[in-house]
């Protein structure tokens, strides 16, 4: 292991903690030491590790290419077990004691990768290889060609990125909602200037930066600000901002997305730089920020140049090499050669040399440079090669040298490569592309700047109502002075958006370079050999030309045919170069070929961060006051709407089926109780309440007496059944409506819509009181006897409380409402009390029921009882059935008007072959499975489906399996024999069609 750490001093290692504490971490199982402030990439470079990854397709050795979130190559898998995270950019992750990282896409090891043979066939694996080789007519009985199906497994194993963990992530992810006047994205010179200006006007400012240390390029510049080094000035300016009440600074926070209405999504990496999050601390936090205006100061991304062998470990962007030297105090190589088409490459060389790095050559494609730049080059003592280019590289797992040839920037012609320069790092600069990804997400059309050879963000889209202003390099304002100026200007505009004053200017004196960022328009050096445009997806310049030859000329086709610009980096370092090569091939100007547009997010975002607390159960759970009791009794609960409800109360060793049969028998023979607190309950009041309810339900409600309940049907506007339930008239102008458990929310919306939009003239108040009342249904022949024991102040005899009557009473000192309603078909009552007394009432009913062996029953038994009785529920109200289909035509008034009346009279609803409600009963003792279809034929030739089952159970009363079903013309087919076929489960049961009212069809039991 060699030590590539420079001597840390004032201007060297500006991000590295000076405490000399070393941090131990492992890469591919080997332990290394780094320093606090290092990224994984800088720490590996400090240890002389150049080879960090294998490429996606060809398995070529790759090293670190950038120093930021745009990294295409040096992706690693971090951590292990449930915390394993693939495809992490080593340039972004800060090292911590105990960090474990492993390389990806290699076998058996990174240094010797058997799959590297992939690069030998050369052009065979070029763009379109998979389409050409494997596409074709599907083989009969197959999803693709047989050859593809044979090869797919091998190919998927050979190509790819890291593997996702299968274990659950043990960490938490949090959310945060924030509001501000001015959001500043990026804390470099422009962002800091904007934040200071906006803060001085009293605006609420949020300043976000994706790096751990704010300051952007200021953390490593050679210039002096206010007489101080950039990183010192930035640190002071940030401290000053942080001390202000109206400023929030978020580091390690990437603003990923810009949405409508000034809404932004930012991901804060709260604990990614720690071994594990502290107790209570989330790993990441998703910030939803709503800003009146924003200053986007996201800087620019340096572009590479394309030449043969430009992907060897050791080839990296010039500014990245400079940052490793200056900010991390790490030699990017023992001998660094710079290859550039613009001034910033020279300044990078100078800054590296000043930090103590040996720069042995500067190669520039341009014929000449300014005196100031030439002086900067001379300061490095490097050999200067103008009018030249790198034509090839040497080395295998690491760069060992480059070939240099003459180059004519006007014609693009390359001369003979007559010089070879040994080096282990080649720092390349091909110009700068403003990072306007966020504003592009809002639809602004980028504009080409021929001088800068770059797209600029352009104007905000007229379709967007998100206010933003670009500043600094992101807006093409390169150089420190322009950054400060444009940052303040953008802040003033943003302040105006927020209705605030201009604030005060506060720019430091700047001593230093004013480099020209405009590059020579050179993107590629054509000299033969694999020259990569997209390092992450192994797309070469030849692939781009191949795509053009084969007709994939539009940038969108180019992207999809070659995969250029796809995957985790989304082409941050390759899009413009690919576009330029396509433009050159087509002999067109770059902006005429196309432009780059971006979608959210800016960098890969963990699903966990987006989900936040919404995992495990994905929605909040509503609990009845008796839910604790149900769970304590071991009831198996399952979701019903937003509630959890008991399925059955299984005794020791009892199956669900045995339990519900026992519970249902107990109800039919004596008495049972079931928690019905989950039913939707809606308080409807007002002088027009009766009229309102009468218009909502299809059956008559106008003459319902006070103290009585009525079963009602609600239709949709189109005449289809929507929901059902009972409504109780409590007073002249006051009703309590009940709905199905799952339909409660929708019914509430339905009622509010009709009150607010359709009949705004009606004075009706509609309030959900689902949580005001707990409810218990008491059902069975002994239900009246049970209530007689415990209810006071209420005569529960048939005369005192007739069928569908509603009365007030007292149980154990608790006021209750007792309604005589039956879902089971037995004599039954519903007892309602205040929600917080639910358990007390449940206990009181259990106690009072002891002499009758009262049995609590769950949803399965509840379902069984109502199926036997032929009472419809959710499965029958499936959004396609009408009242007539379910045998409820008598509940549709022909006298009054109501919602759904007109469209309910469509002739098609009266056709005799509609699916109609019937029951089917198993004839051979076999179970009828849910989802079965009703057919005439036997197993071999079943024929077409004439209907289907909706609710199935074993009927204890009939001692056989039964089901409600919807059957074509079913109401006229009672007595017919059919089969209930379920080919998926392999059942084919002989059944007889009967009336759905299988138990007590004349209703004598419940009225008795």
């Amino acid at each position, binding site marked *: 292991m060699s030590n590539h750490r420079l001597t840390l001093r004032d201007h060297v290692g500006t991000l590295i903690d000076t405490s000399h504490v070393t941090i131990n971490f492992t890469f591919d199982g080997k332990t290394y030491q780094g320093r606090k402030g290092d990224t994984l990439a800088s720490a590996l470079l400090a240890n002389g590790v150049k080879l960090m990854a294998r490429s996606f397709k060809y398995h070529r050795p790759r090293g670190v290419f950038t120093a930021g979130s745009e990294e295409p190559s040096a992706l690693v898998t971090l951590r292990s077990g449930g915390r394993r995270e693939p495809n992490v950019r080593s340039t972004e992750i800060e090292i911590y004691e105990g960090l474990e990282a492993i390389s990806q896409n290699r076998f058996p090891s990174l240094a010797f990768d058997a799959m590297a043979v992939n690069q030998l066939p050369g052009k065979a694996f070029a763009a379109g290889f998979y389409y050409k080789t494997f596409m074709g007519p599907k083989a009969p009985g197959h999803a693709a060609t047989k050859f593809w199906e044979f090869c797919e497994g091998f190919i998927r194993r050979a190509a790819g990125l890291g593997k996702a963990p299968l274990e659950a992530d043990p960490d938490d992810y949090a959310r945060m909602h924030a509001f501000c006047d001015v959001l500043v994205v990026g804390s470099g010179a422009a962002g800091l200037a904007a934040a200071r200006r906006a803060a001085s006007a009293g605006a609420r400012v949020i300043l976000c930066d994706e790096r751990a240390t704010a300051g952007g390029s200021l953390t490593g510049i050679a210039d002096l600000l206010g007489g101080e080094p950039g990183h010192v000035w930035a640190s002071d300016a940030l401290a000053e901002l942080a001390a202000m009440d109206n400023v929030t600074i978020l580091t390690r926070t990437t603003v990923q997305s810009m949405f409508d209405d000034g809404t932004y999504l930012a991901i804060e990496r709260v604990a990614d730089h720690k071994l594990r999050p502290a107790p209570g601390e989330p790993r990441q936090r998703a910030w939803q920020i709503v800003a009146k205006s924003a200053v986007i100061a996201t800087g620019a991304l340096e572009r590479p140049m394309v030449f043969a062998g430009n992907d060897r470990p050791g080839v990296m962007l010039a500014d990245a090499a400079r940052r490793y030297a200056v900010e991390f105090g790490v030699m990017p190589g023992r001998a660094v050669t710079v290859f550039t088409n613009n001034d910033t490459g020279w300044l990078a060389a100078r800054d590296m040399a000043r930090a103590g790095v040996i720069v042995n050559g500067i190669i520039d494609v341009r014929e000449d440079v300014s005196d100031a730049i030439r002086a900067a080059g001379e300061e490095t003592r490097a050999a200067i090669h103008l009018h030249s280019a790198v034509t090839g590289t040497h080395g295998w797992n690491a760069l060992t040298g480059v070939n240099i040839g003459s180059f004519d920037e006007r014609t693009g012609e390359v001369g003979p490569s007559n010089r070879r320069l040994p080096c282990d790092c080649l720092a390349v600069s091909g110009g700068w592309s403003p990072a306007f990804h966020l504003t592009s997400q809002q639809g602004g059309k980028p504009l080409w700047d021929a001088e800068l050879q770059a797209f600029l963000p352009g104007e905000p889209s007229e379709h967007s109502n998100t206010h933003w202003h670009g500043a600094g390099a992101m807006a093409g304002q390169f150089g420190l002075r322009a950054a400060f100026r444009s940052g303040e200007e953008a802040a003033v505009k943003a302040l105006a958006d927020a209705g605030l004053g201009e604030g005060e200017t506060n720019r430091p004196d700047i001593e230093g370079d004013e480099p020209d960022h405009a590059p020579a328009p050179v993107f590629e050096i054509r000299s033969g050999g694999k020259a990569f445009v997209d390092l992450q997806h192994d797309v070469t310049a030849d692939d781009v030309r191949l795509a053009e030859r084969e007709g994939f000329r539009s940038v969108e086709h180019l992207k999809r045919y070659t995969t250029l610009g796809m995957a985790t980096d989304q082409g941050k370092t390759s899009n413009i170069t690919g576009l330029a090569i396509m433009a050159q091939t087509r002999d067109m100007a770059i902006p005429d070929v196309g432009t780059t547009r971006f979608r959210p997010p800016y960098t890969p975002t963990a699903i966990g961060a987006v989900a936040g607390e919404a995992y495990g159960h994905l929605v*909040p759970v509503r609990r009845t006051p008796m839910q604790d009791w149900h769970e304590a009794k071991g009831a198996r609960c399952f979701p019903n709407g937003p509630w959890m409800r008991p399925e059955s109360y299984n005794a020791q060793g009892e199956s669900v089926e045995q339990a519900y049969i026992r519970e249902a028998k107990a109800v039919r023979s004596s008495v049972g109780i079931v928690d019905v607190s989950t039913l939707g309950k809606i308080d409807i009041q007002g002088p027009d309440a009766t009229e309102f309810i009468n218009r909502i339900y299809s059956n008559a409600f106008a003459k319902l007496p006070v103290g009585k309940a009525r079963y009602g049907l609600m239709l949709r506007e189109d005449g289809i059944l929507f929901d059902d339930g009972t409504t109780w008239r409590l007073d002249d102008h006051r009703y309590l409506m009940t709905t199905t458990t799952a339909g409660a929310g929708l019914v509430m919306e339905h009622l509010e819509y009709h009150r607010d939009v359709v009949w705004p003239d009606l004075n009706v108040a509609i309030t959900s009181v689902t949580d005001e009342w707990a409810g218990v249904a008491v059902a069975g022949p002994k239900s009246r006897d049970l209530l007689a024991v415990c209810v006071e102040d209420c005569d529960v005899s048939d005369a005192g409380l007739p069928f569908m009557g509603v009365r007030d009473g007292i149980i154990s000192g608790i006021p209750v409402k007792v309604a005589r309603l039956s879902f089971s078909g037995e004599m039954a009552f519903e007892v309602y009390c205040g929600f*917080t007394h639910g358990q007390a009432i449940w206990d009181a009913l259990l106690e009072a029921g002891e002499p009758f062996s009262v049995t609590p029953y769950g949803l399965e038994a509840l379902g069984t009882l109502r199926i036997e009785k032929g009472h419809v529920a959710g499965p029958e109200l499936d959004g396609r059935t009408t009242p007539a289909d379910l045998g409820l035509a008598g509940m549709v008034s022909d006298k009054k008007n109501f919602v759904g009346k007109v469209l309910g009279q469509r002739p098609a609803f009266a056709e005799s072959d509609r699916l109609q409600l019937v029951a089917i009963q198993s004839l051979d003792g076999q179970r009828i499975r849910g989802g079965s279809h009703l057919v005439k034929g036997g197993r071999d030739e079943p024929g077409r489906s004439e209907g289907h089952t909706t609710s199935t159970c074993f009927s204890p009363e009939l001692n056989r399996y039964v089901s409600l079903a919807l059957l074509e013309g079913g109401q006229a087919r009672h007595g017919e024999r059919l089969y209930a076929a379920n080919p998926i489960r392999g059942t084919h049961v002989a059944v007889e069609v009967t009336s759905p009212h299988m138990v007590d069809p004349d209703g004598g039991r419940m009225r008795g």
Partner: protein
Amino acid sequence: MAEKKKPAPKIAATKRKAPVRKTKPQVIAPDPVSPIGDAAMPRAASGNAGITLSERLPGSFVQVQAWPDTVAKTQAAIDKHAGEGVTTMPVGPGRWQIESDAPGLEEALRKALKPEVAAVTGLTHARVVITASGPKVDWVLASGIALDFAMMDEGAVALTSHHGIPITLHRLPDQGEARTYDLYVTSSYARDFWDWLIRAGEEVGLAVA
């Protein structure tokens, strides 16, 4: 029918006597049981508490809805019931939610407001009130509720939601330096919401008073 003359849902409170009974000796209604249950047992934070929670069940909680032409009249009637221990929160056009420490508010308002004037709906059992206070209370609440808490003045009321759970939020006077809110949450969701608060509060230290 007899039904008509009786006041409808009665509020059962600890000391409230049940009406005349026919068959049994007088039974005192049991205390209402908090839907949050044992989860709301007092506990201290491991360090300094960034947020402190407490829960209460309202003595009365009533929603009043006036009609378009009776808003002023309804307001006047509500004003007569204002006073110590009564919180009146305007929650919409001609709509108020009123909490009282004492039981019986629903009956009193129903007597004062005929159906032609306003609808009175009892929600005493339907709400649990969670008081949240502390130096980090805004941080914890903002992690689940999309409200600009900094812009909420004392006494301000917001109808909002957390993860689909409806919440009425009322800013109280600060307790010392600490911001304080009453959160009115529907009873069936109270346990889930409380559990979320406990989880979200862990990061800043959470105590239950």
